[in-house]
């Protein structure tokens, strides 16, 4: 029997006037999964993650996080999750330590514990060597690391990350990845959206793809490959590319979403 899902949605829908941003999404993320949520621009990823973290009310549908109904108990859910939203949610005129200590206390830690964890996190993230620097003066990569540190300071069971690797250099990305993998090893569940499919392929055990507000695929990479195979004409390959290699996530994504590159369109004025 499957364990109770950490994240589950039923018929999750969000309308903005006549625009159906998210249309009847049924998600199921099992405990301990590193779950990648993919989709082209404007597919509904950010809207979905905002609904899952209690930042945006759904038009209809049900969300359960760790078995708790988000609509009925939003504060209880927020206490158990960590979020790195798109804009990182940082307070620019605090130092890194001040911000982390603040974040810890907002999540219910006592002052001493918050300070201890803040110091440890800053050290782990290699942000401890400039204690007086304000967050506003941090580089983009440093801000991403700090945002992640703030999201995990209370030891959440579920972590939601919206584009955590966007604009992050290889060194900072390495630090982030090692922390996330450590969390997965300790049993946490991570739900992330990213446009960098190579990273998702390397990190995530399971993936869902949303397109025009609808969930078009969900499962492990192997399950996705099998799904693509089932939809392709017989004898054209077992989830493999023309060269016989296994399809990469990018290839799978393009086949599922049906992305066609407009290579023939001319922009003659470009140099």
């Amino acid at each position: 029997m499957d364990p109770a899902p950490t994240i589950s949605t039923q018929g999750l829908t969000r309308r903005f006037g006549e625009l159906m941003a998210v249309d009847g999404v049924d998600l199921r993320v099992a405990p301990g999964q590193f779950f990648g949520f993919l989709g082209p621009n404007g597919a509904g990823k950010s809207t979905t993650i905002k609904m899952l973290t209690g930042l945006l009310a759904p038009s209809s549908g049900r969300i359960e996080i760790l078995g708790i109904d988000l609509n009925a108990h939003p504060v209880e859910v927020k206490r158990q999750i960590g979020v790195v939203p798109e804009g990182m949610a940082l307070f620019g005129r605090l130092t890194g330590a001040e911000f982390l200590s603040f974040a810890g206390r907002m999540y219910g830690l006592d002052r001493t514990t918050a300070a201890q964890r803040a110091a440890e996190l800053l050290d782990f993230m290699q942000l401890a060597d400039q204690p007086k620097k304000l967050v506003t003066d941090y580089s983009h990569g440093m801000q991403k690391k700090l945002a992640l540190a703030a999201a995990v300071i209370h030891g959440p069971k579920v972590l939601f990350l919206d584009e955590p690797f966007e604009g992050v250099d290889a060194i900072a990305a390495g630090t982030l990845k090692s922390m996330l993998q450590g969390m997965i090893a300790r049993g946490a569940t991570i739900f992330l959206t990213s446009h960098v499919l190579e990273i998702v392929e390397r990190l995530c055990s399971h993936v869902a793809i949303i397109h025009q507000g609808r969930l078009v695929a969900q499962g492990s990479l192997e399950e996705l490959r099998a799904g693509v195979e089932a939809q392709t004409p017989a004898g054209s390959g077992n989830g493999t590319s023309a060269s016989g290699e296994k399809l990469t996530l990018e290839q799978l994504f393009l086949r599922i979403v049906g992305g066609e590159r407009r290579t023939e369109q001319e922009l003659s004025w470009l140099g």
Partner: protein
Amino acid sequence: MTSALHRRSQLSAIAELRWRMFVNGLRSKRGKMELLSRIIVTAAFALGGLGSFTVATGLSWFFVSQDKTELLPLLLWPIFFFWQVFPVMATAFTNNPDSGELLRFPLTYRSYVLIRLAYGFFDPASALGSVGLLGILLGVSFGRPSLFPWTLLVLSTFALFNLVLMQTVFAWLERWLAQRRTREIMGVLFILVMLSFQLIGPMMERVGRKPHPEFSRATQIVTQVQAVLPPGLAADAIAQISHAHILVGFTSLLFLGALALAVGSLLHLRLRAQFRGENLSEAAARPSVAQVQGMQVGWNLPGFSQPVAAVFEKEVRYLARSGPMLLTLVMPIFMLVIFRLGPMNPMRPSNAIGRTPDMAFPGAAAYALLVLTNLVFNSFGGDAAGVQFFYASPVHFRQIMLGKNLTHASVLVANTALAWIAVSYLYATPHLAVSIATVAGLLFAAPLNFTAGNLLSIYSPRKRDFATFGRQNVSQTTVLASLGVQIVIVALGAAAFAIARLYRNLWIATIFFLVLAAISIPIYWSFSAALTASRSSAETPCWRSCVGRSYPKV
């Protein structure tokens, strides 16, 4: 495309951008409210402008037709003071969008300066100052039509000087307040200036007791000094030409132009630095390994939960690092000094305010409440994208607002205490009954302000940068609403004190205020209780304004 054409194209694109932003803003209800508020505020300013225009026209006509042009400084000095002081005193009405955002485009330095000056020209202080100058131009021209071209030239130079000076003051204040060290130097200078004002009282008393010669000598010195300052120079340029002293008049205009150039070069220093991408961050130099950060335990606030204490600490730290905001907060003390020199001067007992010096403390306390408006009525403005954190955290909004309001209350208490000390030094120790009545008044006024402020902070916010000065795009709805609340508070306060004085019993005011406080405090609590974390928070104006993303976004 030639560079001139290119520049013109850029400037028209920026003008169109402002227009499109305005028109697109009208799509939302909040935008329409904003337009309505702007119309009301503009109408109020227009009335003020009409008044100053009429007075300036009438008096300048009178001075010229009676051949008393040496009195023209009496018109130009108030305009000068208003132009320079009003934007600093009432930053809420200052409407100078941050032109620095345009620097990402290939803008020439000249275009950048022009945009900065154009934004400054549309500031209410500039508009009203210009209307006053137009009044003088018309008055002088009616009095003696032959003076029109010369007066036009002189007043245009004077207007340009004022415009450039206002931008220079903003730019340099921002520079000095941006970093801890320069801020500390500014703080010390401010305290020294305040202390030096202590000498004014004894000096005035000495002058008052002695016969007039010394006083008239001082007046002579002041007259001579003002004559070489911009308003005096402008007035002199017109007066001298009216007396056919062409060379002297021309020299005065030349001096005025030279001063405008000197101030302009100071502005150039600042704008050039901004144009080149100056970073006034407070980043410390990379420390040695030994300096690596230790554990920093947060503040404890007995009786309050961890989140409330954390928000309080965060707000105080923000304020402490926000020089421009701190400057605004010390304004009540500055105003006490100004009043000490002006209407509440003991040398002028005939003045209405001068007859009631015991009202200095309530007045200063009311002003302390007024300067909090920027903070209380837009309390998420400085948080920018950090607002998301509040929505994502497992904390009810009432706790967040409580933390913020505690900070506001602390600032109010500190400011009121400072005002009490300043009043004691500058005037006389406020009577016990006055002091208690004032505190009771604040007990009523503060919760009322906080209630309205919390609602407007959520429903009509504007993102603002605490590090900039006079370059904020404020919400006119908030300005108007906060003004309405302040007018009600001041009217009730003035009525209470007037009745109490009528019956010669200030305790009447205390009781009146306590009764009002008994109403306003429960109102505050009930509104606070209603502020729970909104489930549709990403759609609230607060989110949209501060995070910068508006829905629908998918």
